[in-house]
């Protein structure tokens, strides 16, 4: 996906064509809902050079994703967005949503998304009603009311892109690509319109050499977001091949397909039918079963939990997930990072040592 346009280019192009931009924060929401209103959701995961302007408003134990998002807002990096969308993923993001009430000018709506902390029909019904409420907010904002058929078409486009992402994740480790290049391609889903992502992803799948077996020791990468990206280079250099992904920004959004005739029910079923995720409060037993199944299918020998420091949803699950994987003979390594900083020398040493124990 060498020719993939940058975020800046995509935003400029979308605005030129008369569309609006929504800055969306982690993790789960419906891209289709925004696209039906000609609003392009561009996700902000807080990484990169967002600076530390957000620190003044947050407790020291707030994670670097939230600090990065707030810094991006305070330094004007999100100025192209006409609205913000804040999924209530964790306490910190919920807190950020409240802070935005004070820090975002009134002309720029801040739309929260409340996610059910459960599964089953009641959770789907709640999610669907939540999406309906957001539909009403967007209708009020844009003055348009897409029909059910419009919504279904938008969902179809996203499903097509999701199926391409799923194919990429299925082949992860067997595509002859450096890990950084793979994630750059997979994560372009965070800002590319679905149709562009699907086309670029298909091109990547068609043109990339495939290996019979992964080049290195097969590992599973879990966590929120693979940043700073040096971690991916370090894994490559140490002789690891990421063959299974459980990152919140990628593998945990390998959403289910749904044929529900009600577009809101369909969107809800897709989000809630995705892989079990700590940020949706899914039971740890289901998380573990999912990771074990992924590890078994891809013959994973080690799982690396690359966690954002102070990420509570992840931290609560980690001990049981590690224990369960270790009992199944899969070595685990937990690394904690501040995504705004370069990874420490100790992190490189731990990765190399893990690979040495598997040599």
């Amino acid at each position, binding site marked *: 996906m060498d020719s993939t346009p940058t975020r800046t280019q995509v935003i400029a192009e979308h605005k030129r064509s008369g569309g609006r931009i929504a800055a969306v924060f982690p993790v789960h929401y419906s891209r289709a809902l925004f696209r039906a209103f000609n609003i392009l959701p561009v996700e902000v995961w807080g990484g990169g050079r967002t600076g530390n302007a957000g620190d003044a408003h947050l407790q020291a134990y707030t994670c670097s994703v939230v600090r990065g998002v707030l810094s991006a807002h305070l330094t004007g990096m999100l100025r192209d967005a006409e609205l913000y969308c804040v999924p209530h993923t964790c306490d910190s993001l919920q807190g950020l949503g409240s802070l935005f009430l004070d820090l975002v000018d009134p002309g720029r709506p801040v739309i929260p998304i409340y996610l059910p902390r459960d599964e089953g029909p009641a959770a789907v019904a709640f999610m669907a009603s939540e999406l309906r409420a957001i539909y009403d907010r967007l209708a009020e904002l844009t003055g348009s009311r897409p029909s059910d058929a419009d919504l279904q078409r938008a969902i179809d486009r996203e499903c097509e892109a999701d199926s391409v992402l799923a194919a990429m994740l299925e082949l992860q480790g067997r595509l002859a690509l450096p890990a950084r290049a793979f994630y750059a391609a997979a994560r372009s889903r965070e800002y590319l319109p679905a149709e562009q992502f699907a086309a670029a992803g298909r091109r990547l799948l068609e043109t990339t050499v495939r290996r019979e077996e992964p080049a290195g020791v097969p590992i599973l990468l879990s966590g929120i977001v693979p940043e700073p990206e040096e971690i991916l280079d370090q894994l490559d250099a140490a002789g690891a091949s990421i063959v299974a992904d459980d990152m919140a920004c990628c593998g945990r959004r390998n959403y289910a397909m749904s044929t529900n005739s009600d577009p809101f029910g369909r969107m809800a079923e897709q989000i809630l039918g995705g892989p079990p995720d700590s940020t949706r409060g899914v039971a740890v037993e289901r998380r573990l079963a999912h990771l074990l199944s992924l590890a078994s299918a891809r013959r994973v020998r080690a799982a690396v939990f690359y966690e954002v420091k102070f990420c509570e949803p992840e931290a609560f699950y980690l001990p049981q997930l590690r224990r369960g994987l270790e009992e199944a003979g899969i070595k685990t390594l937990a690394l*904690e990072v501040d995504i705004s900083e370069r990874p*420490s020398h*100790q992190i490189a*040493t731990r990765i190399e040592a893990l690979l*040495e*124990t598997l040599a």
Partner: protein
Amino acid sequence: MSTVVAIGADAGSTTTKLVGISHDGVIVWETIEPTEPRMREQLERLLATIPGSGGSAGPTVPVVATGYGRNLVDTKHRRVTEITCHATGVYRSIRSSGTLIDIGGQDSKVIVIDAAGGVVNFAMNDKCAAGTGRFLEVVAARMRESVQDFAALALSSPEEVAISNTCTVFAESEMVSLLAQGHAIESISRGLHRALARRVASLARSAGAVAPLMMSGGGAHNVALRALLENELGAAIRLPAKPQLMGAYGAALLALRRAAA
């Protein structure tokens, strides 16, 4: 002196150690000096001093580099982490499985070693200096004592002041407050060693430590830390003959093993 047939270079954050070993894996040459800011040049200079190993042209025998500066050696040499190297060196020296605690200048590591000398599990401190040799260096220097004398003071004290911080910066500040309150240096020293021992013991428990306990790295020379670690973990600690050289020794053994393969 027997001929050096393999070399291990441990470029640590505080000291750089080189070891040359004979065919039967015995240390026949060794050197240790404080790590210089120009680590690459230092490593090249030290490698050139090894007797009969190639002089300024560099060693003609296999070399394995480890430690912080391992990536600064010539790319023709192999690099292995200090976790694997310390485990290899200590296993060969003590000839036992168990749990190795390596307290270096900037890292503390707990390494669980299996019956074949392999690394089963490991835990390592985060990037802050708490729980490392640097912690004691800073607090000892603040007391105008050497690390060894500061440890002796700790062991001479029947009393112990509770230190709540293992953060080097906050512990130093807490220590100054305790001195101002009139506490004896000896009891403060014991409290500081206790705080460090508790932190390392917690790391050991998180790695699933099993007996026997062993120790390597510069921290192994600290008698107070050793005694309080034994107290915290409820088991005796066994020491190799040259604990501080175990990383370099393990690296040399791996170089020898690779040459034989």
